[in-house]
């Protein structure tokens, strides 16, 4: 009896998650078709771009076109593509010469690891800064936080990235060379999860773990600086609203300690908008950190998609957009689930 009672809410939650995922399918399908058409409407013929041999004439262009399946009528191409996607195939990339699925599977962990690290770093900075600023609005602390946030937003990521490389790698030599996830001379861990920090920890290779961590510090800091502003500002605004509400006044009048009031009652209630914005920031970072990936030679999905886009290479761009859409759906769902943790009154709708 007690077991059934425990399972009830869980099962209901699972059903809601299932419904949410199913209802996302039409949106994903729309994204798929839209990207497919958009790529073909854009000027620029991938066959011409890739048929760059010295003797490259029309015959060679036709050969590439045929290889990419572009010689078929558009509706047939779309149907073939949909059939491929349904089987989990995303086509071939001309830019890397590999199946898009292989490329994305290899590169997604790199992007996710970097984004997670950056988000953790940003939240670790933004929450205390936002809370401090909200506790003393108008004070020097508040102004300092505002200054830091403005700076972070104003400086484009490739500038701050190059600056960090220049100072910490070129001048001081504190950071390892900014070329990817691991020193070229270091051995890679067995690919268990694809997240280097996790994989090194799993095989207890702490020297390798330190090497991987050293590589991620600069790019993660660059990205964290950039998203510091929305997170800190949102924390501040939300905290200000909560601190002015009646239940806080009640708590204070009941003589609860200031620490308890701020950290337990106020912060927990102020977290919901911060969670929402974190979800958005995360999805944005994953796709938009292309400049950081370029500067640090980080083998992520965003720089992969950009290279493909510049070459009019259809399949990788389509695969990337689909992946991003799927991640966006997943992140939103996760954020909704976290609402329930932060505020038990909220439930997955």
């Amino acid at each position: 009896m007690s077991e059934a009672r425990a399972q009830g809410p869980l099962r209901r939650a699972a059903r809601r998650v299932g419904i949410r995922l199913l209802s996302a399918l039409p949106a994903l399908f729309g994204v798929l078709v839209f990207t497919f058409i958009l790529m073909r409407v854009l000027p620029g013929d991938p066959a011409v771009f890739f048929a760059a041999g010295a003797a490259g004439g029309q015959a060679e262009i036709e050969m590439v076109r045929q290889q990419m399946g572009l010689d078929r009528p558009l509706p047939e191409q779309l149907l073939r593509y949909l059939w491929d996607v349904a089987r989990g195939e995303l086509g071939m990339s001309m830019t890397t010469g590999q199946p898009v699925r292989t490329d994305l599977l290899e590169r997604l962990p790199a992007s996710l690891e970097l984004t997670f690290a950056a988000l953790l770093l940003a939240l670790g900075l933004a929450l205390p800064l936002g809370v401090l600023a909200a506790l003393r609005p108008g004070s020097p602390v508040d102004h300092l936080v505002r200054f830091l946030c403005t700076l972070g937003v104003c400086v484009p990521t490739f500038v701050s990235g190059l600056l960090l490389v220049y100072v910490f790698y070129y001048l001081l030599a504190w950071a390892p060379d900014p070329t990817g996830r691991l020193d070229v001379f270091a051995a890679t861990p067995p690919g268990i999860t694809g997240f280097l920090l996790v994989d090194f920890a799993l095989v207890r290779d702490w020297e390798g773990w330190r090497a991987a961590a050293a590589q991620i510090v600069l790019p993660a800091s660059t990205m964290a600086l950039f998203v510091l502003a929305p997170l800190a500002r949102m924390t501040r605004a939300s905290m200000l609203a909560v601190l002015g509400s009646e239940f806080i006044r009640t708590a204070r009048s009941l003589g609860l300690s200031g620490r308890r009031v701020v950290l337990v009652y106020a912060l927990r209630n102020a977290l919901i908008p911060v969670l929402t914005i974190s979800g958005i920031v995360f999805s944005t970072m994953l796709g938009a950190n292309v400049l950081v990936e370029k500067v640090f030679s980080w083998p992520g999905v965003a720089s992969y998609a950009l290279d493909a886009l510049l070459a009019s290479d259809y399949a990788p761009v389509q695969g990337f957009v689909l992946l991003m859409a799927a991640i966006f759906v997943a992140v939103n769902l996760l954020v909704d689930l976290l609402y329930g943790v932060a505020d038990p009154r909220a439930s997955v709708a």
Partner: protein
Amino acid sequence: MEVNRRGLLAAGGSAAALLAASREAGAQTRAETLRYVTGNVINTLDPTVPGATRESFGLSMNVYDRLAAFGRRQFEGNWVFDHNSIRGELAERIERSPDGLRFTFVLREGATWHDGTPVTAEDVKWSLDRTVSARSLAPPQMQLGSITRPEQFRILGPRAVEMLLDKPDRLALSNTCVPYAIMVNSTLAKRHATADDPWALNWMRDNAAAGGAYIVETHRPGQQTVLRRNDAWKGGPLPQFRRIIIQTVPEPATRASLVERGDADLCIDLSPSDVQALSQRGRVKVVSIPQTNGFTHISMNNRMAPFDDLRVRQAIAAALPYQDLFQAALFGRGRALFGAGWSGSPPSSDFPQPMPLRQDLDGARELLRQSGHPNGFSTTFTIGVGISPWAEPMAALVREALGRIGIQVEIRKLPDAQFNTAQAERTLPFYTEGGTAWLPATYYFFRLYFTRPQRWNFASFDNAEMNALVEQAQFETDPAAYERQAKRMIEILNEQVPLLLMWQPLHEAVMAQNMDGYTYQFYRQADFRDLRRV
């Protein structure tokens, strides 16, 4: 549960020990390792696959052997390839019949593939057949050397293969030196061939069936490729570097820092401003070699009004400030192809060579008036994003200079794929770009860039005399007659100005101070076999 966890821990422990061991080995061989950083990617191990990048061509030269190879010569203190001296690579000896219709290749004794199996005449025959039969980039290139059918290749014995020609093509042998003419371990490749793909193009994209100086150890497309020296290599003197790490580093500023800090040993695609700064600071070695087989040009579409009028083309040729363009685009770093003193007939039959182009504004205005455009006209000047670092300042100057004779120029910047598409469709009226010919013979340049309705005919030039000359020169066996024909081609270029030759940019390789032997190769990539530390 318990067993699983223990198993995992044990596996983890041994993996960690392995990692530690390989890290030690890595430290020992740093001096014998060359780390090469590039902004481009290697997208296939088989250079003949359609879409292969230039970086893939460079890799294949190190991993595969060809029957023959170009030698190298000193040019202004640097090493450059020499297409006039051809030596055997997989072939120990090459014999040419007096009529130039038969080449006999005698294979090196004891030559082996990377898997240790001996190189046979059957392998060579299969490889040559592949270059003319597979649906790849190779056949169109081989055709330029009159190599078109498998019947042209015959096995003479266990170590001898011959190539037969219908006509004595000047460049038939040269075509056996290009990146497409790889020699393949046919037993291995055939194991992975299918009915749809009899030449194993799909398999060889990710796997090497080679016998060259380096063995591919790991290949992660778009990221990094590691090569190990093939100690059993017979194709030439054993290279010094035991290990090569080829790494893609997209950001040019990062590549510059890596080389300057000594973490990378070689980079050949830095931005010109970085190269200048690096050479001033003097912590690295900069090797600057004019790209002797290339040229930058300003092209006019000869089939499109108003550029179909010779006088309009001549007016533009007379209106441009060549020296200023050269300074603005490349800080003058290169070899000028304008401002020559000759008129009528060129001093030599070499190409590209400086043309008698110079600014003469009054002459330009007069020509424009004669052509029926006394008040000028409007046109667009197109540049590709990829070349914008040097083309953008150049375009601004072109606009200013032509504005002075009344021609309104609008500058259009297109992403590379769009630029290439428009170029191939011949819809660009007026644009700039560069060209490089693998085989820098004069007639080959003119055939590739000034005849036939194909993409590399930049100006859509169609001149009956030029077409006939190119046909003739390809099979001309009399050196004096060939010289006359080649000079005439250059004269036609000067008379008709289908496009304007500007300069040969520098190929700038930045490397560690202790590196030596860097050679400029016709495919514009580093040949690791030439390099050593001193």
